[in-house]
C-alpha cells in the first residue's frame, strides 16, 4: 500500500488527474435531527477516474454512505460541486436527476433490495423499463447480465427462493444491465456469509477488471476494501486518508 499523502490536512487531498470521471469539490452535507443540525460531511474533495475501483471505509457515522448517496444522486449536498462525467449533478432538478440515475448509475445494496413479487429475470429487467428498448432487446440484455453474474440458471426464481449470495448476484445483474457509467455498492457483502462474500467480491473485481466498470463501494469489511484499487478513509465527515492497494493490482 502507498503512503497516504497528507494526513494532517485532509482538505488538501489532491484530485487524481484531469481525466477524472467524478470530481467532488468542497462537498458539505448535514441533516436535521429534531431541532439539531448534524453535520455528516465537511468539505470533501476527491476525484475518481474512469474504470476505477474505489472503496470508502471508516467507522459508523463517518459519512461514507452519505457520500456514496451523493455521488449516486439519491441525495443532495448542502453545498459543493459534484461532477460526474462532465455533468454537475447538484444542478439537476429531481426529474432530470432521476433520468440521470437511470442512465448512469447501477446500485448494489447491502440487503439486495430485490422486489419480492418479481422473478430474478423481472428484477433485472426493471431498470430497462425506463429505456426505449423493445421486449426482445430487454430480454437479450437481461440474459447477458444474468450470465455475467452467473445466475442465469435461476432467472425465473423469486428472491425468496434464492440464497443471500444468489440474491446479491441478481442485484448486481440489475446494477449492470443498463451498462451504467458507475456502479455504487453499499456494503455489498454486509449480509453475506464468508464464501458468498468472497464470490461477490470476485464478481465485482471481474466487472471492474474485465469489463472496465467504475465501482464505488462503501464497506466495513477489510477483505472488501482490499479488493479495491483505491481506498478513501472517512472519519467524522472528513476525508482523512487515501491509499492504493498496489500489491493486488
Amino acid at each position, binding site marked *: 500500500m502507498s503512503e497516504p499523502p497528507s494526513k494532517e490536512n485532509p482538505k488538501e487531498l489532491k484530485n487524481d488527474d484531469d481525466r477524472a470521471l467524478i470530481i467532488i469539490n468542497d462537498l458539505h452535507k448535514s441533516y436535521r435531527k429534531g431541532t439539531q443540525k448534524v453535520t455528516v460531511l465537511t468539505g470533501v474533495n476527491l476525484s475518481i477516474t474512469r474504470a476505477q475501483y474505489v472503496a470508502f471505509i471508516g467507522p459508523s457515522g463517518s459519512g461514507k454512505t452519505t457520500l456514496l448517496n451523493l455521488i449516486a444522486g439519491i441525495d443532495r449536498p448542502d453545498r459543493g460541486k459534484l461532477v460526474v462525467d462532465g455533468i454537475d449533478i447538484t444542478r439537476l432538478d429531481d426529474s432530470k436527476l432521476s433520468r440521470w440515475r*437511470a442512465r448512469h448509475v447501477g446500485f448494489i445494496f447491502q440487503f439486495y*433490495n430485490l*422486489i419480492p413479487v418479481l422473478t430474478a429475470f*423481472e428484477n433485472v429487467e426493471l431498470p430497462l*423499463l*425506463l429505456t426505449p428498448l423493445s421486449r426482445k432487446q430487454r430480454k437479450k440484455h437481461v440474459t447477458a447480465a444474468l450470465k455475467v453474474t452467473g445466475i442465469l440458471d435461476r432467472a425465473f426464481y423469486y428472491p425468496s427462493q434464492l440464497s443471500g449470495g444468489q440474491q446479491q448476484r441478481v442485484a448486481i445483474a440489475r446494477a449492470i444491465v443498463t451498462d451504467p457509467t458507475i456502479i455504487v455498492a453499499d456494503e455489498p457483502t454486509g449480509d453475506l456469509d464468508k464464501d458468498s462474500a468472497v464470490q461477490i467480491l470476485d464478481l465485482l473485481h471481474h466487472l471492474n477488471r474485465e469489463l472496465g466498470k467504475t465501482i464505488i463501494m462503501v464497506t466495513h469489511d477489510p477483505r472488501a476494501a482490499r479488493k479495491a484499487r483505491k481506498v478513501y478513509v472517512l472519519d467524522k465527515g472528513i476525508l482523512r486518508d487515501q491509499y492504493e492497494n498496489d500489491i493486488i493490482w
Partner: protein
Amino acid sequence: MNLLKYVARNAFRHKLRTSLTVIGMAIVVLAYCLLRTVVAAWYAGVEASSPNRLITRNAVSLIFPLPISYLNRIKEVPGVVAVTYGRWFGGIYINEKNFFPQFAIDAEHYLSLYPEFLIPEKQLEAFKKDRRGCIAGRLIVKKYGWKIGDVITLRGTIFPGTWDFVLEGIYRGRDRGTDESQFFFHWDYLNESLKKTMPIRADHVGWFVVQIADPARAGEISRKIDAIFQNSLAETLTETEKAFQMGFVSMTEAIVVAIKAISYIVIGIIFVVLSNTMAMTARERTREYGVLKTLGFEGPFLLKLIIGESVFIAATGGILGIILSFPAARIFAKSLETFFPIFNLSVKTLASGLVSALIVGVLSGLLPGIKASKTPIVESLTHVG
C-alpha cells in the same frame, strides 16, 4: 413484464388481507346495488307514469270518493281525449299476507288508457262480457297458481262481504318497469252490490283517469277540471299521473332518504377500509419504493403503482359484488314481491356501483401514493417498517 402484471402481483402479496378487502368491497357494492334498486322500486310507479294521463281525485283526500256523475263533465273539457275511472278495493285473498292491489275499473275503457298492460284481445273481450270477470297480472297469477276460468275469492275490507271473480285474462307488462301484480274487475259489479247493500256508497269512484292529447297543456286542463267542481260538495284535485304517484312516494320519503343515505354510508365505510389497507401496504413497501426511485422511477410511477393496486382491488371487489347482485336481487325480489312488484337491477345502478368502487379505489390510493412519491429516497431506503 409490464405495470399491470406488477400491480396484480403486488395486490396479492398479502393474500388474506387483499381477499378480505375484496370481499368487503364486493359486499358493499352488492349492498349498494340492492339499496339503490329498492329506491328505484319505490319510484317505479312514478317512472311508469305517462305524461298524457292526469288523475282527478277528491281535493280533501284520496280516501274520499267522487261522484260518477263527474265523468261526462270532465269529458267536455277541451283537450281531454278520454276519461275513465277506478276505485280501490282492498280485499284479502285467503289471508292478509297475500297482498296485491285490486281495482274496480271501468271495464270498457280503463285498459285502453294503459297501453303498457298487454292482454290478448280474446281475453279482454271475455273480461268485458263477464261482469264477474277479472284480469290479473302474470306475477300474481304465477305466484298463486291461477289459470283462466279460476274463481278467485276476495274478502272485502272496505266493501264488506265475500266477492267472487272469474279470471278471464292475464296481462303482462310492455316493459320491465310495468307492474304485473295488479288485479282489475268491473266497477259495475261492485256498484251494483253497493246499491243493494250500501246505497250511500254507490255511484262513486276513487279517481278519474284523464287522457289528454298534449302533455304541455296538463296544467291548464287540470285547472279547468278543478274549476268545474269548485265550491261543490266534492271538490277535485287534478294533477299529472307522475305528481299523483309522487304523492305516494313522498308519504314515505323519510324511508327513501334513509335508504339513499345508507347506500352512501356503506361506500364511505369501504373507502375507510380500503384507505387503511393501502396506507398499510404503502408503509410496508416504503423501502421498495425507495429502491424504485433509486433505479430512476419517478414519483408519478409510484403514484400509478399504488393507485393501480388500489383500483385493482376495488375493481375486483366491485365486479364480484355486481355478479353477486343478480342472484341476491332475485332472492330479494322473490321474498319482497308483495312490496316491490318491480324490482329490477338496472344497468345504471350496476354502473354506478362499479364507478363508486373505482372512485373509492382511486381515492384510497391517492394519499399513500402522494406520500410515497414525495418521500426522499434516503428516507425511504432507511425506513424500518
